[in-house]
Every structure is written in C-alpha cells, then in structure tokens.
C-alpha cells in the first residue's frame, strides 16, 4: 500500500464568535497558510480536495457550496464533501490516494457554531422519532455518561477537574486556544455544577473557525521537499445509536479502531484525543490504553477550543506538528462524532 503522510496543517484561532466573517472568509486564510507550507499557490496544485462541514451549525443548506468559493476551482477540480468532521474528509482522501487516483489532497473543515445554540442544535442529531423530539441536548447526554462513571467509581470529580486543569495549563502554549490559564483542581471543584455532575469547565467551549491540511504520498512530500509525518494506521468505527445498549463508561468503537490502526504496535509519545467533556478524555485514554509515557493533548485539546467539523482533523494536525518539530517520534490522533462518543476515528502518525 502507498505510504501517505501529512505535510501541512493550519488552524484558525478558536473564537467564541468570529464576528462578521462568514465561512468562506474563515476558510481562505487557512488554505493560504497550508499552500505556503508546501510551496504551492492554490487548490489547483493538489490532486483532490475534500471538506467537512455541517449545514445546521450556520442554519442554511449547502454550507459547503460556499466553501468551494474559497478554492479557486477554475478550471474545475476533483472535489468531495462529507457532512462530518473533516477527519472523515481526510479518510476519504486517504482512500483516494491509496487507490492511485491522487498523489496529494487538500482537506479542510469549518464551522461557525456561534449563530445557533450548539448543544440544542446537536440534539437534532438524535433519533428523530423518539429522542430529537425531546430536545435532549449534548451536554445533558454527556452528563448522564459522567454520572454513570462516577456512580461506578470509575472516576472522581477530582479526576475530571484534573483533566481540565491540565488542558488549561497546556493551552497556555497554544496561541489558537480559546481557554487557557493556570488553575488548580481545587479551584475548579469549587465552581458550581452546571449540568450536574458537569461543571462548565468540564465542557468544551463553542468556537468558530476553520482548519486545513495537506496530505500526500511520501514520494510527493520528498518532491516538495517538506518535512512530513507518515500516516501508518487509520481506522474508524461507529457503534449503536441506542444509548441504552452501550456501555457508556467505555468506548468500544475507539478500541476497535485503535486495534485496526495498530496503536499498540509501538510507543505512543503524544496523543491528541477529541474529548468534548473532561470525563470523556479519561474514557478515551483508557480505550486507547495510553499510559504515563504519553503526552496527552499537549495543545490543550478541545476543552481549550472546539471547532466543530474541524477539531477531528486538528487533532491529527497537532500530532503532525509535534512529530515534524522532533518533539515526538510516534503519535495517535483521535476524532469523534455523535452523542457520547458514538463514532470514533484513530490515526497513527510516525516520523519520517
């Protein structure tokens, strides 16, 4: 199978409100940034383009059609779109490169989540007949999951607060982060509950922004003469939508994807996991079997800023950054979709 690698990544600042900028205006600077990293001038210089977005975040159909206006797609280009996080756009691009129809691909994800009330909007992801009609929001579902873990003694509220404190501290090094700072487990535990047992700090913020990435064959990376991180494993699995049939204290689909991606085949120096809620980071850490040797979420993770539809691809980008910077030799990136970690992707990246 052809060796594929990440060669460029850029993400906008995570902002609670990107103001007047529309989606195209959020995307264009990120595209320009990744073009610059590999020394190309437009989407015409890659073989395939794939994006991830969700119409309901901005509240109008065909968000991705506007996205095409950022590409300079004249003459026409080979382009596709997933109504999912752009991590899955990357997956589609990997298949395209594996089958030999492309040597390089541009991937981008974008969202302006601020125009609507995101947790309520996402309630409409649920079964439309039985669950969506009850407007069960994502935070409440995650709270029930955290409750199960607490009641079963699998975590304490202190463990959750420790995840948050760690995220805030690491995010101080991340100029794109929305939330960062020195805090302590004790200080966080003194905050009132928000949707019990979750505190506001246990929940990721809502952010506007975009991220872009370029992947290609290793041969192409050498031709471009740019540093790269090889994608040595990638897999994703979904599990039942029926929350009552899942063990919410575990992430079975993450374990399945990790096994097929070969996470355990080598040391994991760094991991970026997409955990929108603090307790989910602990679930994922356990499902990926990450120990003390792994630097988890050095970017601060999505508790520091969550670009819906881009955070998944950003996790891959953050691991890529650390590998090409020489800070890590091998890393794992995780992306998620759906309520309570229903759908999970695991990518293994290694240095050249």
């Amino acid at each position: 199978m052809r060796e594929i690698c990440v060669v460029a990544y850029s993400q906008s600042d995570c902002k609670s409100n990107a103001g007047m900028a529309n989606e195209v205006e959020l995307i264009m600077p990120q595209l320009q940034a990744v073009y610059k990293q590999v020394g190309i001038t437009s989407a015409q210089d890659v073989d395939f383009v794939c994006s991830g977005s969700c119409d309901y975040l901005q509240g109008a159909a065909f968000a991705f059609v506007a996205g095409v206006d950022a590409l300079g797609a004249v003459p026409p280009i080979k382009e596709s779109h997933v109504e999912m996080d752009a991590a899955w756009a990357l997956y589609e691009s990997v298949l395209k490169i594996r089958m030999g129809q492309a040597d390089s691909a541009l991937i981008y994800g974008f969202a302006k989540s601020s125009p609507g009330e995101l947790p309520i909007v996402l309630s409409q992801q649920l079964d439309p007949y039985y669950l969506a009609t009850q407007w069960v929001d994502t935070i409440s579902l995650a709270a029930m999951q955290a409750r199960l873990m607490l009641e079963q003694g699998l975590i304490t509220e202190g463990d959750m607060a420790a995840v948050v404190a760690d995220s805030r501290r690491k995010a101080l090094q991340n100029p794109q982060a929305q939330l960062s700072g020195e805090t302590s487990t004790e200080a966080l535990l003194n905050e009132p509950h928000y949707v019990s047992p979750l505190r506001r700090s246990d929940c990721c913020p809502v952010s506007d922004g975009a991220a872009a990435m370029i992947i290609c064959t290793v041969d192409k990376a050498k031709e471009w003469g740019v540093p790269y991180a090889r994608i040595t494993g990638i897999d994703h699995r979904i599990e039942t939508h029926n929350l009552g049939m899942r063990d919410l204290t575990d992430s079975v689909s993450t374990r399945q994807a990790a096994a097929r991606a070969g996470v355990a085949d080598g040391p994991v120096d760094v991991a970026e996991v997409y955990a929108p809620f603090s307790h989910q980071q602990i679930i994922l850490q356990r499902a990926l079997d990450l120990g003390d040797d792994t630097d988890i979420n050095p970017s601060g993770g999505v508790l520091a800023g969550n670009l819906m539809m881009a955070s998944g691809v950003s996790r891959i980008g953050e691991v890529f950054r650390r590998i090409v910077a020489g800070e890590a030799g091998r890393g794992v990136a995780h992306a998620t979709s759906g309520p309570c970690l229903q759908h999970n992707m695991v990518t293994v990246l290694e240095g050249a």
Partner: protein
Amino acid sequence: MSELAAVVGIGQTHYKTKRGDVSIAGLVREAAQNALDDAGLTFDDIDAVVIGKAPDMFEGVIMPEIYLTDALGANGKPMLRVHTAGSVGGSTAIVAASHVQSGTFKRVLTVTFEKQSESNAMWALSTPQPFSVHLNAGAGGYFAPIIREYIRRSGAPADVGIKVAVKDRLHGARNPLAHLQLPDITAKEVEESMMLWDPLRFLEACPSSDGACAMVIASEDLAEKGPKPPAWIRGAAMRSEPTMFAGRDEVSPQAGRDCAADVYAQAGITDPRKELDCAEIYVPFSWYEPMWLENLGFAPEGEGWKLTMEGATSLDEGGDIPWNCSGGVLSSNPIGASGMIRFAEAARQVRGDAGDHQVPGAKLAMGHAYGGGAQFFSMWVVGAEKP
C-alpha cells in the same frame, strides 16, 4: 494501484410521494436489505457502510448516519456520510467504490435516500439572505433562464422538452419502481400542463419523491461469487466548480465536460454515443437531456436536441443510445438517492437485470449525476466485461 471493483447487489424501494408506511430507518433498511438479497449476502458480510443524501434540512435530521447506524447494520464498522448536493447519489457510489478500489475493504454497502415528505424541501433550500431577493422560485426558477439561453444558442424548436418529458415517462411506465406511472402520456398533455417557469411546464419537471437506493460493491476476488453477474466499474470521476464566476458557461459547464472526458479515458471510450449501449443521466428538467447530450459529448455543440427529436435516446423508438430507460429523474426524484439510482440503473443494464426496461444485450453503460447550480458532477461507466 487501483484494485478492480464491481457492483454485486442492487436494491431500491418503490418511489412515491410519501412513504407513510416506514420511518426513515425503515426506508433505508428496505433498500439495503433488497441490495443484500440481490447479492445473496447478509449484513454480516459487509465491511463498511457509506451513506449519502442531500441537505439534512430535507428531513430535519442532522448527520443522519448517527441515527441510522443500527438500521444499516453498521455497528462496529466504519460508516461515512457523503454530501455533494444533487450529485451526492453518484458521489456516494464513487466514495463507496474507493473503499474497495483502495484495497482497504472487500465488500461495502452504500445507501442513499431522501424522505422529502418528512419536511418541506422548497422551504429548506431557501432561507432568506439579505444579499439576494427572496423569490422562493425554487430550482426551476434557477434553471429555467439557463435553459432559455440553451434554446437561444442552439436554435432548438420549442417542443424538444415536451418530447423528453413524454419519452422518459413512457420509459418509467416500464419500471414498476418508478414514482410517476403515466403509460398513456401524450405530447399534447405535456404541452397543456401548467407553465411553471417558462419555458418549463409542470410535466417537464421532476416529481418530489420518497425513496432509497442501495448497492453492494465487492472486490475482484468476491465479485463473481454472487447469484447474479457483476457490473464491473470501468471508470469513475468527479468534478466541481464554483456556482458563479465571471465567464462561467452555465449551459455547458466545464466541470461536466472535464468529468466526462476523465471517465471516458478511464473506460477507454472515445465515442460515447457509439461505444456505450445506454446511459442513465440526471435530467430533472426535460431540456437537460439535449443540454447534457452536448455537454457529455454524445452530440456536437448545438445538436443535442436533434438526437432527442430523432428518437436516438428512446427505447420505445429503438434509438441507438437510449437514455434513462428507468424513467429517469423525471419519473422518480428522491433527491439524495437520484444520482445513485442513475448509477445503479446503469449497473442493472449491464447485468442484464433491468426487467421491462432492459436494453437488449447492453454491455457498457454510464451513470451520471449533477448538483448545486450544475457545478458538481459525478459519473461512472460500468461494464459486463471485466476490464
């Protein structure tokens, strides 16, 4: 490099205005089960599921793969959701095929659907925005001026659209799954139907349907193990261009021409009219048949309408290149599935399994879909013979 892949199972639902007897999950399950039955397989034989549909606002369910995981037996498997506007049915088939052609999976289930009766499609597509007037004229309001420009350029007579409207409905009457069943339709009836968006009349426009279409795509080593012959994928391509840019040819978009050139090159086709036995082309408004005949290279520029008028695209008139033998989008239009129906019907033809709308001896067929402002294209060529 690219591994061979073939369609080994096809399943569709009946298409109708409202499928009140099934939920959205029931609808997709029905198509998926039909495809598995056709392939002689079960859900356990499937490695991955690829689903596609047009905007989520059509049903009001956000990212419906999340809710449809169980209905499609995807628990513990990879599941991907494609959305490329109206071309999505075709794009979804191509993305599903890439799961096999990349050597990553052996058997993939792909499903597309629309259940427009669950919502109001017209409303879903036209949220008011201040930089344009809110005319709510629908897709017809967008495409009618482009059709008018085609008529001006080509000098086509006024009744070309009527001829297509009749032909595709007569084709549809041969297909028991088709939404519109109009075996006695006449040119006069089309001509006298209400003018909606001049020059488009009511009977020259597609219906709005509920329905789903599914396929099983398998790798080379498994393709010939099923009860029916496979339809080998001989070429697949996608192209996109922006909705509006200065100098854009809206009548014959370059993205369509480039996409066709790409898919023909892969399939080794130099003269599509001669080498293809039939085609399933996305024609939601009658006049798009002559327009696409030219865009896709079946006729020289300005002469597509002549093929239509000569009966070249008609099964009933014994045409040499029948288009839309299933009745096409003009007979059934569950938007998100419409593209995949084209791809699947092309495959049915080369499997010799198209029932009363079979083109005798068809060996090579094309499926085509487009979307947005005729800016997103997906196409494939399938053949009875292994490449």
